[in-house]
């Protein structure tokens, strides 16, 4: 199997499987072997499942032979962040205290992918407890620091570190990650892949580690925006086992989104000034591409809320409740990052009034976004304002001293849009110092097709998403 297969988008693999250029068994075996061989190089692999996946692929091949088609993911193997339970096998949540944890049922999203004949080829690494408590080192993981396939001295981003690195390095055709606040967007941007964070409630979290019940989302990390849409169609849908489920399904149909020439995208001019200087040429070029596509860019201001205090209080209070027994048993001290353990302990003392205040402000945040989306269809901003940091440096190292621009721009868009439960996509838009740069789009709730229409048009005009790291 040639290298190009490992980086092929889903529709391409689907066509070749149907044409019998290769079987699902051959593809799954090749992907599994590659993941097992190269995954450890990036600390991306938590648990190989190649044998089980190949057995599943045998059944899929029988169906393909009978021309019993189950959709575009049929026969295509994938990886899943190790916070999703896979019955009978360890689900570590990336953390030492849960190293031997085994559940007896699958996460709903894994069952959904199994139903369409997509074999799970491996569990992928993650930041311990998806970053619960707040981490300050890249090594905050049971599997070691997530290493960036573009530069092994750099971090892959978190907390979906394994899924993003594995897709970027062509170790899996697609992967599932999760986001509470930035955990899909950040690693997708740092690793140069496309990540989609769905609207809160669109994808079931049953069988996933909870971090923050009112913020957690599960979403795809892929080579292209179209791939993200195809995966989202399969994993979305109501689930009575998830109390946060919106009871809605998603159908991949970007062709029915508003025409680009009629699409208004809000942006903040000061965003480019907030970005590290090395990123600015890539960001300027990306904005020019958007203009050339015919979209209307409209200067927009993000409302002024205490974003950091809001997101920290809500995640902090909810995670302290989720991990109450971990904290009280003292096992929290087994975490790789001591600051994370201390963060969880401190969050257990967040007063109820503080949490409720944050949740009340959150109601206002939702109203503010409704007002913003009366004037624009989407928002755009850099996914991150710097390149992937060095693994050897603390993640909270102060950046270079610069005079801050007069307005905050969209710097808090990740926290703000997560608080409002809105969908986002991050896709590669260039390089700086040899590392990928990402652009993010945010849409009103359940408007994933609007996000995808613009991201697909962007990827039709550029080839950043086709670049491969030197694996």
């Amino acid at each position, binding site marked *: 199997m040639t290298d190009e297969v490992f980086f092929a988008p889903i529709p391409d693999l689907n066509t070749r499987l149907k044409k019998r250029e290769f079987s699902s068994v051959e593809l799954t075996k090749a992907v599994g072997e590659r993941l097992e061989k190269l995954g450890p190089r990036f600390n991306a692999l938590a648990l190989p499942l190649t044998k089980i996946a190949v057995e599943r692929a045998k059944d899929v091949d029988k169906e393909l032979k009978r021309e019993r088609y189950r959709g575009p993911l049929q026969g295509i193997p994938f990886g899943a962040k190790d916070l999703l339970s896979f019955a009978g096998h360890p689900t570590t949540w990336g953390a030492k205290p849960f190293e031997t944890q085994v559940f007896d049922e699958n996460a709903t999203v894994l069952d959904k992918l199994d139903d369409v004949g997509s074999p799970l080829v491996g569990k992928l690494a993650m930041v311990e407890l998806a970053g619960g408590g707040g981490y300050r080192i890249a090594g905050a993981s049971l599997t070691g620091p997530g290493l960036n396939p573009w530069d092994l001295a750099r971090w892959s981003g978190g907390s979906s570190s394994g899924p993003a690195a594995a897709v970027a390095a062509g170790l899996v055709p697609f992967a599932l990650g999760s986001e509470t606040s930035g955990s899909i967007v950040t690693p997708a941007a740092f690793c140069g892949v496309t990540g989609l964070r769905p609207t809160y409630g669109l994808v079931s979290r049953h069988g996933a580690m909870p971090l923050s019940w009112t913020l957690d989302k599960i979403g795809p990390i892929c080579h292209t925006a179209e791939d993200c849409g195809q995966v989202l169609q399969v994993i979305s849908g109501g689930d009575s086992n998830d109390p946060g489920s919106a009871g809605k399904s998603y159908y991949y149909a970007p062709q029915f989104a508003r025409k680009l020439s009629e699409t208004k995208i809000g942006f903040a001019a000061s965003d480019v000034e907030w970005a590290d200087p090395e990123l600015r040429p890539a960001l300027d070029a990306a904005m020019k591409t958007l203009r050339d596509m015919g979209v209307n860019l409209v200067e927009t201001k993000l409302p002024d809320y205490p974003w950091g205090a809001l997101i920290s209080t809500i995640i902090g209070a909810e995670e302290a409740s989720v991990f109450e027994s971990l904290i009280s048993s003292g096992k929290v001290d087994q975490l790789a990052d001591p600051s994370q353990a*201390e963060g969880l302990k401190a969050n257990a003392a*967040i007063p109820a009034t503080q949490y409720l205040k944050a949740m009340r402000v959150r*109601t206002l945040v939702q109203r503010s976004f409704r007002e913003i989306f009366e004037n624009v269809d989407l928002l755009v901003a850099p996914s991150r304002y710097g390149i992937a940091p060095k693994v050897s440096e603390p993640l909270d190292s102060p950046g270079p001293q610069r005079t801050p621009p007069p307005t905050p721009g969209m710097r808090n868009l990740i926290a703000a849009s997560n608080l409002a439960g809105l969908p986002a996509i991050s896709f590669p838009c260039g390089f700086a110092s040899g590392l990928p740069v990402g652009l993010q789009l945010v849409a009103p709730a359940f408007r994933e097709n609007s996000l995808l229409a613009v991201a697909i048009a962007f990827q039709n005009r550029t080839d950043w998403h086709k670049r491969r790291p030197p694996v």
Partner: protein
Amino acid sequence: MKLTRRQLVVAAAVSNAVAATAFAQTSASASANSEFAKAAREGVQRNGETLAKFAVPVSVEPAFQFKA
């Protein structure tokens, strides 16, 4: 096994050095942890103060059963 006086002295010195290093590491680690704990507690307090300053109309309810 017979040990010479010189070997005994060296063994004792090494053992003391190991113990001293372990103690230094433990106390450095404990000190770092207490700094992390202090920073985390201060962060919670700072967030509370920030939110307390933010006025919310009495009619605004928390986003319970959060829906996007």
